[in-house]
């Protein structure tokens, strides 16, 4: 049921973690380490990507609920010539991203009742392309950040 993942460039780097909150920090570490190896990416863009991936991992983990200890979240990283792509895949309940409630405007006193629902708006703002692919097995969120060409290989 899942659409094929458009994979720019070579095979991905993959990180598979148990669907538990304590491992989101590891996903962030891997993403910021991989992103900073591309020297042309500014630090604040690395922070943007790190936060977006973190939000996607948090949602993936929450979609599993607390019950299933064996469930897994798979993070994949591709480097294209002019973009980075990260996907976050879960085996959770799935959802329809079109049907999320809108928040009341921030100046509305009602706004304070919305302690949640900030993750997806953040993701949409932070990266250049977002794609949610709901499927029967779960959800795949694909995040794309545009960037300059990969650093030429300095290895002798």
């Amino acid at each position: 049921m899942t659409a094929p993942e458009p994979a720019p460039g070579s095979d991905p780097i993959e990180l598979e973690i148990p669907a538990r909150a304590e491992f989101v920090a590891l996903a962030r570490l891997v993403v910021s380490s991989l992103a900073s190896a591309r020297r042309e990416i500014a630090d604040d863009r690395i922070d943007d990507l790190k936060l977006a991936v973190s939000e996607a991992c948090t949602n993936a983990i929450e979609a599993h609920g607390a019950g299933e200890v064996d469930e897994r979240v798979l993070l994949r990283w591709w480097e294209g010539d002019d973009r980075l792509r990260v996907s976050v895949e879960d085996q959770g309940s799935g959802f329809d991203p079109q049907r999320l409630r809108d928040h009341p405007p921030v100046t509305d006193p009602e706004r304070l009742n919305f302690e949640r629902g900030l993750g997806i708006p953040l993701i949409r703002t932070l990266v250049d392309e977002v794609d949610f692919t709901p499927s029967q097995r779960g959800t795949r969120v694909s995040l794309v950040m545009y960037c300059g060409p990969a650093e030429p290989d300095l290895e002798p």
Partner: protein
Amino acid sequence: MDLSLDVTERNGYTVLAVHGEVDVYTAPRLRERLVELVSQGKHQIVVDLEGVDFLDSTGLGVLVGGLKRLRSHDGDLTLVCTQQRILKVFEITGLTKVFAIHDSVEAATAG
């Protein structure tokens, strides 16, 4: 895991200094601490975010929840933050309009 919370009193305000990463794993500890402070009658709380390396939507949610709780006690929750990457998260979500954000603990506890 990587979160530390230190409480001090200053000029009638309770200052909660947060160090480390606030995410889905650590945010419950921050929430607990805020709830605890409010139940101890601390109704003017300054959350000092200068030591925060990372803050996500879960962390924002906890701060919004704290503010709401304090407002219902006629109190307030204000923030100290000058780090651009943390401020950005408040800006994107429009929460700069909801929270008073100060440059220093001094400024936040001056009133």
